[in-house]
């Protein structure tokens, strides 16, 4: 097995052990804790008032726009990392190209700003 696969196998095993640990703590708890369900206990908590309507209400659409903006810059970051490790090798050509790349993507923030997406009324 190559070193690469080996180290990611370690990561996988570590993750499995971490999940197992959480499971073990929860499992241990099930021997110790009481279980006396009553209908009142299982109502959603809304500061002591009986809940009105569904818990799954409609929410602010803005979060969706933030998510879209996020995708733009997250993809940008994915492209930045490989360049960043080889910055010296590409020299001034690389700096110019990346400056152009970052510059174009920064226009998205300016556009969002202009459309007042970032201001909450």
């Amino acid at each position: 097995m190559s070193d690469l696969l080996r180290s990611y196998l370690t990561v996988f095993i570590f993750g499995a052990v971490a999940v197992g640990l959480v499971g073990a703590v929860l499992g241990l708890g099930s021997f110790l804790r009481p279980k006396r369900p009553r209908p009142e206990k299982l109502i959603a908590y809304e500061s002591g008032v009986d809940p009105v309507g569904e818990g799954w209400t409609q929410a602010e659409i803005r979060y969706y726009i933030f998510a879209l903006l996020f995708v733009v810059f997250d993809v940008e970051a994915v492209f930045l990392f490989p360049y960043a490790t080889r910055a010296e090798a590409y020299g001034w050509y690389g700096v110019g190209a990346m400056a152009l790349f970052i510059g174009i993507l920064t226009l998205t923030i300016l556009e969002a700003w202009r459309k007042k997406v970032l201001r909450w009324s």
Partner: protein
Amino acid sequence: MTSAVLAFEMAYWQQSVLRSVGVLAAVLLPAGTIVYLFLFKMMSFMQSRLGPNEAGPYGSLQLLAEVGKWIQKEDIFPAKADRKLFAMAPYIVVASVLLVYVAVPFGPDAWFARLDTGIFYVLAVSSISAIGVLIAGWASANKYSLIGGLRAAGQLIAYELPMVLAVVGVVVQAGSLDLFEIVRMQAEGEIFGLSWFGNPFILTQMVGFVIFMIATQAELTQPPFDMPVAESELVTGYMTEYSGIRFLLFFIAEFASAGAFGIIAATLFLGGYWLPGLDMHADYMNVVGPLVLLGKMLFVTFIIFWVRFTYPRFREDQLQKFAWTLLIPLALVNILATMVLKVAF
């Protein structure tokens, strides 16, 4: 440690399981107890109170006492909740935090997995917790939880970017994503012709460090960025419906991720497990290194909690605006400046 284990000629996966259990026990019990005590005492003194002082000498067993207490509490699933997702959320959040520790270099041989893409892996794994938080908020079928979960997700993605972009500056300077390489560059670097204290990147990446710390504060949903769990508006946000040990798991994950981000900040900006005057490749660093890193982590978490108890809460829109119009452009400028300086010198 490795050689003793290897002597038994075990299969690779058996060794890995043993090491995982060993490391988790080592991280969660002693380190967890020390960090927990340090943070709780510190928080208490900032608020002019004594803090934990009953369980064990000087309150040192408080963490065990907490676990012992919470584990006996009834585990309540709300009637309308999506049971599978509701049960799944704490697993995702805790696993996401613990997986960060896999890639951290604690010493020249004291490591768990040496990944070529170390820092990239850390950033990727640490952001999985946003999904866990969103699931917790959604599955609870509670309005407070849903609003809290959405706020948390919005905040986590908005501050993920400044954090990632601040790290790019360090990567440009070190020329590698490997955390070991980043530590080595800091230990062997020199600044203005001086080399005895190496070149901790906090000196050249000061802007990056400040952005990283602010983003960390927001990723941890600590004040002044604690709108997702704002107790005066949303009870405890996405954790409102969780009770007993499941609630405590979210809580432990929060502290563990304060520690994880502390370690990452120390590795990226403060020289990692290395200190001036020590030989970073020597064998003794496998013992001294983790202690040095723990000390630096305590320092960074001290700053995080200091800020937590000093500043009042932002408003939700101020939070988003701060990230998008100030931190992200600043981080981009920082990257460009670093690139130009790297190529010029």
